């Protein structure tokens, strides 16, 4: 049962967005986020909305999957909106007790809310259309330039992909240990929070021991199969830019340009 959980939030579908090179999607998300914070007018946000809607349509991911991510930031968004609403100085429009709402406050709060919502939606589209493996591959290759400043890019991506492989195994193991300890009379349900945390010790200790043993075995198996870091390594499925990826980059440039022009020339 625990074997079947999906990792990350990948939504399998057959779309151009799914097929894009992960590097393109990473860069695209970054570009989109930066543009959100650079834009300062309503017309710009209309442009961003249009782009986002088109991308979601093409990706064939159902809308409710995309907005699910918003739940997690709802409180954060409320706080940000409240702060902006009440603490921005300017012409007062409304007053409750000691709190004043200004026209500027309303404007910044609205922009901030839109930015946060679009930020989450934009990055959700990326994680929903990219498998975790592609994502790590894309990061390894896309951030390859960091190797020059001694960031262990290959190692980090290797660690991430191994973690992805072992999460389901360790989950299953947790399940097994939990049942075994329950059969021996362990109680994971009753008591207050501290008591409950203490009760987890008989679960966590064996889990850690086994995780270290697995790590040791895996390291040996990797060495036995000739693993010696990223140097001189080839790939079975190397990332290569195709025409659609180049098109995507072009569209990104067009978007930035259009956004810049609108931001500069249109005054509302």
């Amino acid at each position, binding site marked *: 049962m625990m074997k079947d959980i999906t990792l990350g939030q990948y939504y399998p579908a057959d779309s151009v967005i799914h097929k894009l090179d992960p590097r393109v999607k990473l860069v695209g998300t970054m570009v989109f986020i930066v543009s959100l914070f650079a834009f300062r007018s309503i017309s710009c946000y209309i442009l961003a909305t249009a782009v986002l809607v088109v991308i979601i349509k093409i990706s064939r991911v159902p809308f409710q999957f995309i907005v699910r991510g918003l739940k997690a930031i709802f409180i954060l968004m409320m706080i940000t909106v409240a702060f902006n609403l009440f603490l921005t100085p300017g012409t007062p429009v409304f007053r409750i007790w000691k709190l004043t709402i200004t026209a500027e406050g309303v404007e910044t709060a609205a922009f901030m809310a839109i930015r946060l919502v679009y930020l989450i939606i934009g990055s959700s589209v990326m994680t929903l259309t990219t498998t975790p*493996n592609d994502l790590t591959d894309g990061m390894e290759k896309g951030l390859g330039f960091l190797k020059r400043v001694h960031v262990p890019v290959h190692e980090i991506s290797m660690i991430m992909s191994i973690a992805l492989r072992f999460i389901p195994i360790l989950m299953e193991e947790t399940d097994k240990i939990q049942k075994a300890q329950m059969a021996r009379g362990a109680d994971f349900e009753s008591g207050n929070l501290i008591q409950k945390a203490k009760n987890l010790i008989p679960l966590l200790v064996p889990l850690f021991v086994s995780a270290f043993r*697995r790590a040791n075995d895996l390291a*040996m198996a990797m060495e*036995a199969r*000739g693993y010696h870091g990223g140097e001189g*390594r080839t*790939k079975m499925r190397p990332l290569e830019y195709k025409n659609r990826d180049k098109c995507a980059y072009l569209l990104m440039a067009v978007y930035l340009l259009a956004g810049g022009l609108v931001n500069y020339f249109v005054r509302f």
Partner: protein
Amino acid sequence: MKIVKAENLEYEYVKLDEDGKVESTLKAVDGVNLDVEAGDFIAILGHNGSGKSTLAKHINAILVPTEGTLYVDGKDTKDPDKLWEIRQTAGMVFQNPDNQIIGTIVDEDVAFGPENMGVPKEEIWRRVEKSLKSVGMWEYRSHSPNKLSGGQKQRVAIAGVVAMQPKCIVLDEPTAMLDPNGRREVIRTVMELNRQEKVTVILITHYMEEVIYADKVIVMDEGKVVMQGTPREIFSQVEKLKSLRLDVPQVTLLAHELRKSGLDLPEGILSIEELTAALEQCRAGKA
């Protein structure tokens, strides 16, 4: 041509106390001499702690001998420059199938070895296809390893080693964590590799049934090689095996007991067919 040659091989595990001083040492492998011909199927037997796994790890240069020398395909395992060549020559399959699969998809895992060797892309694809087909796992190439059975995982692990095109495969108790079905699958795969691809196989195990097909059986105890010979030669010495805390196959044991109680049976019977044939002969002789 000797593919593996050990000369007075010794290995000591050293236990250090908290100050880094030597607390105790344990000689896991003690003066082992070993000759393995290319293309052979060798089985190494021994109960827990007999040093058989330690010996196996030497062949892949995961461990380096404390004393003596080990040559793999003519290369000294102590030579750090030859390390990667040796690991390519002698592949290794471990006991726990979960802990040796690195990829999140079957074919990516098989490609891991060749990728490390820097094999070009097209060649990797060719090798992955060939090795997955040779272990009968080609249909599962795009599955997640987590959804396979133990025997299937172990076959994927074998394919991962085969894709490196080694001359020799060392299997360190590959069936210890499998059910009887999985065990049969794995042993059949290993035997096919040996017969068809002429890969030298060194199988470490404590299941007697798995060694009767080997060309040569080596029995280890307390780090030393105590018996060497064909399966028939080894299993004809039931009493000695028992004193080494090893079981003999049921049929062999039955034949041995019958012989002790006076029946005229040959020593070292390995299969049910052999025993029935011998019993038939016995009866015909009496009648």
